[in-house]
């Protein structure tokens, strides 16, 4: 055990204990119409006692652990409470997990983004559990008149050396009245029993029964349905509306416009990213009635800024990557000289299109807003930001705005930007009734907040001994610059130059699963494969040589990776995949990347089926420190890989005259079960280091591993996403 001060995030423990007073009875806060199962009712205690913000214990020992972070499918609703339960030392079977609403007084960082929930929560959650355990021990010691040091806990039971024992439930009331200990002991990771044990998704049984868990499922008495119409093209806004055909339609209550442009004198927050501020709104009784009215509405649009085309966007980006930047993001040594002295120069450009997030559950939100109070319910990755937006736009004080997070049908970054939540609030305020705003798939896909389009130029200089002596990267993106100047291979080459440009556009862009990394990893790891080939080296050996340099004699100071852990995943994937072994008709590619504080290496096997390359198997090695829930973790790894392959192979959002060419899944291709690789073999590095991100890091490198394997299979470097497009374009008809 390690003794730690409870000062970290201490307010989480203090506030509730104070408020709980003498063992407060707290009702069960079931979301929406979610009823406890008969089994749960049987087990329900008569009284609950609040131990701290994360724990309440019933008089019968049943324990509720609160999950404060938004659940987008990354499984934090299971894995975060597991951490609390571990240190509380309780039987996981007796744990009920309950999602909290937004409460910034009690909880830190109620946000789903950057794969950081577990990393940030780790220490605080352990302490919450350990504090609870300690208070229960103190309560037992007092009652039994024995020193705490003679007591032990196991699975929710306290035992004394004399043989006496009792469950936590017996001491819950007394414990809830104690003050928070100054110091608590944390378990030695080798004693973990819950952390590291495969544990099923706590919502699994409800999901397979179709219970109402999602924002779209939310219902409140008297609730109206609202839909929006945004301009068909970026750079347009509504000019006039003819609602004559709509007003008399069955079930239609109102048609009006809202404007979510930033109020005068206020600053826009990043979470308010939105290309379409002026919206036409239709409110009615039911979804289908509103959908029909939406089609019947006649709106005239006017152009307010440029209408962009994908072809022009590509050529502008292409031009930017030929231009020097006045302010390089990093420059080591003398790159110009290195390239002049080079025996060989390798150069390649890489491209990727806009991508829509396409969460399976389209954007939606419930709002019930009146003069001085707002109730908001729905799928949001940034509930605190949404609350402050609603405050900013309505003037309702933050303490009167309640935000409840529902389970989300996917996030991938889209729900970091809560424009739909704000829109729901503005609509509810206007009609003075509870409203659920629903985007159709078409609204959702054409609304923007896309993964930016990217272009990247790489150059490498080799000397006559095939040593890498110069490396140059120049990045460009729409409204962004996809570059991490201090990541590998920075630090491994004497002469290194990293530059970037951003191309302004009225197409809104945003974070999309593993922002920038999702492209940089592909371009960089594809390029290094080509450099290794030019140097006549095995692609893994080549990378390892560079890591050797970073370990023994790093260039520069700010290198943003641990070369040993990075090399570690590569070595392990080499071993697990039997790299180097020749298999008839099988072509292999490798890739490795570091992002969200985690290290990933992947090997892909591709086989040719009637000349068509097919992905057969993937080996994936991850170093994300301690793995809290191996079952959920493997699911995340597989999901990241399938997602990464799918988007690299098939997906693109293009536009003509500012209008997206794809608005539903008939034109926007997503990976399906047939296209999924047959097998993924996952390994985690066991090193006991505090946990880091897992929801994103397996996505970025996979597209390069695929491209590198494809190259070996078909002799073509895939430099443009989506690959299927490039494969089609590059087909040369035999003469």
């Amino acid at each position, binding site marked *: 055990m390690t003794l730690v001060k409870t000062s970290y995030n201490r307010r989480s423990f203090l506030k509730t204990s104070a408020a709980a007073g003498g063992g407060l009875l707290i009702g069960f806060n079931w979301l929406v119409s979610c009823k406890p199962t008969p089994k749960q009712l049987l087990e329900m205690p008569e009284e609950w006692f609040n131990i701290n913000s994360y724990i309440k214990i019933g008089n019968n020992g049943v324990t509720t652990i609160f999950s404060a972070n938004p659940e*987008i*499918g*990354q*499984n934090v609703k299971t894995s975060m409470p597991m951490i609390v339960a571990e240190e509380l030392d309780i039987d996981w079977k007796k744990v009920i997990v309950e999602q909290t609403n937004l409460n910034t007084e009690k909880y830190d960082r109620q946000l789903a983004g950057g794969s950081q929930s577990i990393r940030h929560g780790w220490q605080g959650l352990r302490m919450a559990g350990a504090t609870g355990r300690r208070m229960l021990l103190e309560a037992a010691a007092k009652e039994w008149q024995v020193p705490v040091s003679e007591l032990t806990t196991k699975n929710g039971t306290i035992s004394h050396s004399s043989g006496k024992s009792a469950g936590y439930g017996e001491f819950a009331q007394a414990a809830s009245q104690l003050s928070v200990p100054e110091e608590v002991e944390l378990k030695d990771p080798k004693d973990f029993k819950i952390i590291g044990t495969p544990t*099923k*998704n706590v*919502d*699994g*049984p409800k*999901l*397979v*029964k*179709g*219970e*109402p868990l*999602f924002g*779209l*499922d939310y*219902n409140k008495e008297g609730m109206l*349905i609202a839909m929006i119409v945004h301009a068909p093209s970026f750079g347009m806004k509504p000019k006039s509306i003819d609602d004559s055909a709509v007003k008399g339609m*069955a079930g239609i209550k109102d048609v009006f416009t809202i404007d979510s442009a930033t109020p005068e004198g206020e600053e826009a927050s990043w979470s308010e990213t939105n290309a379409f501020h002026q919206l036409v709104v239709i409110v009615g009784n*039911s*979804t*289908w*009635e509103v959908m*029909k009215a939406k089609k019947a509405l006649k709106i005239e649009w006017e152009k307010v800024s440029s209408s962009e085309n994908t072809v022009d966007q590509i050529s502008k980006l292409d031009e930017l990557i030929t231009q020097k930047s006045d302010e390089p993001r990093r420059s080591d040594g003398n790159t110009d000289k290195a390239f002049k002295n080079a025996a060989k120069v390798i150069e390649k450009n890489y491209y990727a299109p806009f991508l829509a997030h396409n*969460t*399976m*559950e*389209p954007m939606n939100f419930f709002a019930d807003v009146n003069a001085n109070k707002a109730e908001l319910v729905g799928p949001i990755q940034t509930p605190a930001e949404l609350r402050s937006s609603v405050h900013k736009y309505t003037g309702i004080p933050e303490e009167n705005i309640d935000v409840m997070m529902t*389970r*989300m*049908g*996917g*996030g*991938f970054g889209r729900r970091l930007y809560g424009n739909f939540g704000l829109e729901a609030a503005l609509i509810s305020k206007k009609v003075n009734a509870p409203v659920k705003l*629903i985007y*159709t*798939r078409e609204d959702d896909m054409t609304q923007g907040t896309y993964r930016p389009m990217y272009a990247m130029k790489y150059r490498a200089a080799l000397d006559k001994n095939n040593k890498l002596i110069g490396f140059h990267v120049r990045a460009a993106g729409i409204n962004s610059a996809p570059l991490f100047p201090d990541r590998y291979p920075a630090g491994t080459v004497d002469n290194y130059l990293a530059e970037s440009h951003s191309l302004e556009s009225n197409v809104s862009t945003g974070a999309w699963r593993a922002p920038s990394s999702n492209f940089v990893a592909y371009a960089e790891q594809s390029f290094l494969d080509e450099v290794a080939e030019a140097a006549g080296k095995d692609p893994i050996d080549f990378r390892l040589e560079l890591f050797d340099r970073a370990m023994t004699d790093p260039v520069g100071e700010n290198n943003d990776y641990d070369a040993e852990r990075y090399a570690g995943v590569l070595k392990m994937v080499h071993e697990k995949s039997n790299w180097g072994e020749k298999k008839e008709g099988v072509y292999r590619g490798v890739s490795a990347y570091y992002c969200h504080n985690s290290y990933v290496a992947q090997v892909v096997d591709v086989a040719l089926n009637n000349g068509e390359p097919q992905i057969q198997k993937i080996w994936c090695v991850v170093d994300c420190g301690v793995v809290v829930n191996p*079952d*959920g973790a493997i*699911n*995340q790894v*597989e*999901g*990241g*890989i*399938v*997602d990464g392959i*799918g988007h690299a192979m098939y997906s693109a959002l293009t536009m003509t005259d500012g209008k997206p060419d794809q608005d*539903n*899944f*008939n034109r926007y291709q*997503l*990976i*399906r*079960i*047939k296209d999924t690789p047959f*097998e*993924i073999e996952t390994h985690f590095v066991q090193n006991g280091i505090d946990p880091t991100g897992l929801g994103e890091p397996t996505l970025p490198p996979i597209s390069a591993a695929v491209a590198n394997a494809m190259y070996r299979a078909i002799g073509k470097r895939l430099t443009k996403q989506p690959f299927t497009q490039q494969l089609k374009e590059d087909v040369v008809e035999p003469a």
Partner: protein
Amino acid sequence: MAQFTLNINGKQQQVDVAEDTPLLWVLRDHIKLVGTKYGCGISQCGACTVHLDGTATRSCSIPVSAIGNKKVVTIEGLSKNGDHPVQKAWIEHDVAQCGYCQAGQIMSASALLDKNSNPSDEEIYSAMNGNICRCGTYLRIRSAIHSAASNMNA
């Protein structure tokens, strides 16, 4: 508006809606069975899959007036206690990530197993290719269907 009497999960249900209302919205808005999900509205994603006389059907694309006396089964009616072999296999393999697509996946999978008690990988692919999972849980879906099949045949 018109009156329709539908057989849903073994119960007769009366609704008063426009004839062209897709079954999906009748279920979700009028009967308050929201397990059936909306994903695309154009038969492309499978999130809205229900059984119509035992056949997997996209409820977003069939108007209520076309149901007649066909039996509709939704995810809520697949089993009494969530213990259909497919539901059990879904839990055993911990298939869900966000979970939004899974009701549709389960309805497609259970309809497949009703007709083919021991599907091959290829047969699973063709029966399930209309169901998108944006989270990429396809490998687990395939394994869970095999498990459910072997449990049903045991």
